[in-house]
């Protein structure tokens, strides 16, 4: 038994944190906010920006198998990285591409190869999409089945489920109105509504039937849920750290406000819930990666993948929101401004807490498993 990040996973997360510290400070997040003032188009990824830095570090392609140019990392080795990407409130769609879409592309490539019924055009597109991930030439988005938002409005490639088939669509030549950007409370987020009626889906874009890819599709959805949870616990850390700094230095009644118990207890509670949300998130990642031992009957219902995933997402959503609320309250009026960085993290938290299922929805999934 050893329940901690692996040395590789921890080393990778530390390296990502260090890199983001210089290439993705809050000022970088603010540039995305500023760009949204005029247009919701994703700002271009520049050579000195975080996207390229993470491509160079091998983060974007880390979960692809070695034979297509990736590092073959399992999701569990990337969960610490997802926490760090969350902690930086990184606007670039790295999580969506690296841990959700890229391994799904690789799974689909195998399925398509096995079934052997896909059109030459889409087989070629799939190869191109994989190459693009390795080169960092494009982000890839997975469009969920229902009317949920697509988290990556200007993805180079789009995986879409429609009418019993899985389709791969070139995001750079989408028909007008197919993907409609939506303004988010978080000015650094680029979400869009997908209108399937405006997509040109055909046999030429279909990779396989949904049934053939069902396992891979569900696995991708679950990775998205846990990766979102990991970003949420990551977001909690800078919010807590900013607040601890602030209440140590802000003085009222002649003393630092952090010396008042009313402030201490709020922050202690926030820290408590944040600390206890981390293990469920990392455990869920281990279950999804099939880490040896997770199949043991001793885990009980927690060993069922969806229960582990929903437990993680519910805990992370609630914890991050609690930290956000305590952080705002303990900052007082300064936190209620857009000049202070707190809102960058807080608004991302509000969005992610409900993205990929809010806490109550995930608890009801667990409830169904426990009480059915």
């Amino acid at each position, binding site marked *: 038994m*050893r*329940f*901690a990040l692996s040395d590789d996973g921890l080393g990778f997360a530390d390296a990502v944190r260090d890199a983001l510290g210089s290439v993705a400070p809050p000022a970088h997040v603010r540039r995305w906010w500023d760009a949204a003032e005029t247009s919701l188009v994703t700002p271009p990824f520049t050579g000195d920006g975080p996207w390229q830095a993470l491509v160079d570090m091998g983060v974007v392609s880390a979960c692809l198998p070695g034979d297509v140019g990736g590092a073959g990392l399992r999701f569990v080795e990337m969960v610490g990285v997802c926490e760090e990407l969350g902690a930086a409130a990184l606007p670039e769609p790295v999580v969506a591409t690296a841990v959700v879409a890229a391994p799904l592309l690789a799974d689909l490539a195998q399925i398509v190869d096995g079934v052997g019924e896909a059109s030459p055009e889409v087989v070629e597109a799939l190869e191109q999409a994989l190459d693009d991930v390795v080169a960092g030439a494009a982000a890839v988005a997975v469009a969920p089945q229902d009317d949920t938002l697509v988290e990556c409005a200007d993805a180079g490639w789009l995986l879409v489920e429609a009418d019993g088939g899985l389709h791969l669509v070139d995001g750079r030549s989408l028909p007008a109105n197919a993907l409609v950007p939506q303004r988010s409370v978080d000015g650094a987020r680029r979400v869009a509504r997908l209108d399937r009626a405006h997509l040109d889906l055909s046999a030429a874009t279909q990779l396989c039937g949904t049934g053939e890819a069902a396992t891979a599709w569900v696995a991708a959805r679950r990775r998205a849920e846990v990766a979102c949870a990991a970003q949420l616990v990551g977001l909690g850390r800078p919010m807590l750290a900013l607040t*601890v700094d602030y209440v140590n230095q802000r003085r009222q009644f002649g003393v630092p406000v952090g*010396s008042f118990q009313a402030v201490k207890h709020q922050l*202690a509670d926030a820290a*408590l819930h944040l600390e206890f949300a981390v293990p469920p998130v*990392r455990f869920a990642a281990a279950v999804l990666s099939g880490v040896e*031992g997770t199949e*043991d009957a001793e885990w009980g219902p927690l060993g069922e993948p969806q229960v582990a995933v929903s437990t993680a997402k519910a805990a992370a959503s609630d914890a991050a929101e609690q930290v956000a609320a305590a952080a705002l309250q303990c900052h007082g009026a300064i936190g209620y401004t857009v000049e202070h960085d707190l809102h960058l993290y807080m608004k991302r938290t509000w969005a992610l807490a409900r993205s990929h299922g809010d806490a109550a929805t995930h608890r009801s999934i667990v409830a169904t498993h426990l009480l059915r």
Partner: protein
Amino acid sequence: MRQTRRVELRWNDTERDFRDECRSWLSDHVPSRPLPSGDTAEGFAAHLEWEQQLFEARWAVVSWPERYGGRDASLWEWLIFEEEYYRAGAPQRVTQNGIFLLAPTLFEFGTPEQQNRFLPRMAAAEDLWCQGWSEPEAGSDLAGIRSRAVRDEEAGGWRLSGQKTWTTRGAFCTHLFGLFRTDPEAERHKGLTYFMVPLDAEGVTVRGFGRLDGDEGFAEVFFDGAFVGDDMVLGEVDRGWSVAMATTSSERGLTLRAPGRFTASASRLVDLARSRDGLGDGSTERSPVLADEVTRAWMDAQAYRLYTLADVTDIVEGRPPGARSSLNKLWWSELDVHIGRTALDLLGERAELVEGAEEAVAGGAWMKAYQFALSGPIYAGTNEIQRNIVAERVLGLPRR
């Protein structure tokens, strides 16, 4: 070159064998009907018999060295034991204040003579230890202790005077461990000494009184010039605070409250929800709100289980939790109250029925458990104090 460490969620063969052995012994020996409460005179005797049975089969103190009746079990095996123990519905441990709180301190600070003298009798439930921290004027503010120990050079020891209170099971125990002021001039944390005291010594009076949950296990203990020898001092004279702190961190953290206890309670809560005494079939539709509360409680218990696995990994790899043990205490104590309250909500109007009422569900055990749980946020340092500790020592907020 150091080997690369991976995530591993598999119990090894030794641990699996340990679990099997433990499970099969418990299934053969756990009394089929719950014992009467260990915090009543009648129940205490029944619990002593159970403790002796555990000791004879070497299950009383699994993590201790073999020479004291243990199995040299690793922390991982200890977690497994606790999980199996509570899953089997085995009796509460009336010896716990000795084996979980005093013993770790004896291992750390005791002389070999003290260890040999006290540990085996403690393991065999021949000596029963209660904790003497609180005083009428020193609860959360433990450093406000006024009980004194005055040097008796001629007799080669100390004369104790003063009063301890809220002493759990004090009315049934044979010995007490606690802090006494040995340097009356010293301020607060200084000048305190850790003593072990036989309760049958001349000059010691124990008066039991009733507790919230109806049991009579609480006691106040009066010292009126009671004599103890130098061999009853644990650690150095006037350095009792740091010795005591070693014990209180055991109490807040892992050793007193293994997750097995709460995962077992949470599973019983889920069973209750599904049963006809709870919501019955289709629980989630019948009362989505209650189903949600049950789910929260279950998830929080799982979070504690996973947090503990991470904690033990840290301890094993040389990253001790320190003040973070206060996070543990906050979590398990509030989780326990939540489990209890949710069970009462499931039972509805029958929640108030207690042992002896025909209509009581499970002999009123849930109300009993709830009342016991309510002590959690109070003892071992109130949760208000724990929140201060988290804020000051984990987060780094200013003390004043």
